[in-house]
């Protein structure tokens, strides 16, 4: 059974069996506008919470996406290389960014659930 968490930086995490799939929320993709490039992370890279994991580039600007928790990258969404607009059209689905193996599941407790996130973005 997967649990979904949200961060104040407008990311979502779907956690199943110690692995989190991470993406940005629909709210975030709307703020960014049309994406034209996603700089994906290397597999095997170890990230601490707050490290830049991915850079998403819109027509106008580049924005960092941070690791919401500690862990190791085990997969990147390579379909974004040819179609970065998947993040716009399916932010919480096919537009996921990376998968990471969690090294500190306790960090999940400080994240928001969907109701709290909805309240956060107003």
């Amino acid at each position, binding site marked *: 059974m997967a649990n979904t968490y949200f961060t104040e930086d407008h990311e979502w995490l779907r956690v199943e069996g110690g692995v989190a799939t991470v993406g940005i929320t629909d709210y975030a993709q709307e703020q960014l*506008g*049309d994406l*034209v*490039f996603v*700089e994906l992370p290397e597999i095997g890279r170890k990230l601490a919470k707050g490290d830049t994991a991915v850079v998403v580039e819109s*027509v106008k600007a580049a924005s960092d996406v941070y690791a919401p928790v500690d862990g190791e990258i085990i997969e990147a969404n390579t379909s974004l*290389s040819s179609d970065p607009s998947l993040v716009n059209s399916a932010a919480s689905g096919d537009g996921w960014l990376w998968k990471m193996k969690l090294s500190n599941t306790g960090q999940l407790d400080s994240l928001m659930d969907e109701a709290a996130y909805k309240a956060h973005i107003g």
Partner: protein
Amino acid sequence: MTGEDTKHLPLEGLHHAAGARFGAFAGWSMPLTYPAGVMKEHLHTREHAGLFDISHMKLFEVSGPDAAALLNRACPLDAGALEISQSKYTLFLNEAAGIIDDLIVTRLGDNRFMVVANAGNAVEDEKHLHALAADFDARVEPLDRVFLAIQGPDAWAALARAGIETGSLLFMHGIEPRQNWFMSRSGYTGEDGFEIGLPEADARDLVAKLLQDERVQWIGLAARDSLRLEAGLCLHGHDLTPEIDPASAGLMWAIPKEVRASGHFIGADALRSILERGPSQKRVGLKPDGRQPVRADAALIDTDGNPAGHVTSGGFGPSTGHPVAMGYVNTALAKPGTRLFADVRGTKIPVDVTSLPFTPHRYRKG
């Protein structure tokens, strides 16, 4: 996001109603995008007609017996040689021939000219013109207008349907079709189009009529930037600055030969000596390899790893389908086809020097 000093467009309510997302630019709160998004807005402009609120830009009327003489002092220009209704792209230079602003001057009458200047420099430009005007029998009057641009292949037809005939007006010409209106066939997208300064009440009426036409959509500042970049047009503050001269910027086409030789404009001596020794750097188009955009301030290096220049504007070109950029490189590296690298967050992205524009201009010249 926006402070107390932020200026607001007279038609801001219309943009809110259209669902615009706002951002700060040159001291103004400006619509950046509408719900369609920058990509669709950009393409819509190239295919049909985009409506832009550019009221952040400033119109000045310069009039009086010495109006042409004042402009010839302020700009590398022969204002007296302009035909009535002819427009000319020109510059304000400092004593070192650095570009204070780029602007368009249109002759409205024997002793009357319209000057259209950039938002970011409007205050400085006005001071500059007023200070110079003290030596001339000429008046500089900033006009209180809403300023709209309608750009794209359907712009003329949409205006015609809205009751404004543009038939005989050609590219880089401007007229006063109604009282307190100024309309020129010009723009910042590379497309055929018009820029219209008019009183607010008239503007509300015109906007309402134009938006009834399905060919016309509001277009935000984000697409305005990607359109002008594809068209190879400069943004002052980025591609042009007071530290850059017209020879380096590749804008000598805007300065007639006689004016270069004998003009008494501010910066004339400095410009002549720059031309004698040749500019050390030049503005060029840059086409990055692949899909990753290369943006302003990225450093450029040559194939040997030596500093080559820097990027001044960069982003993604929705019409070209690839990233587009421009910047300044050492003159020896300015030839189209030269391979350089841009440093983007430590990664070296290959970029090729290319001629501008990226998207062919489609002006209505005759």
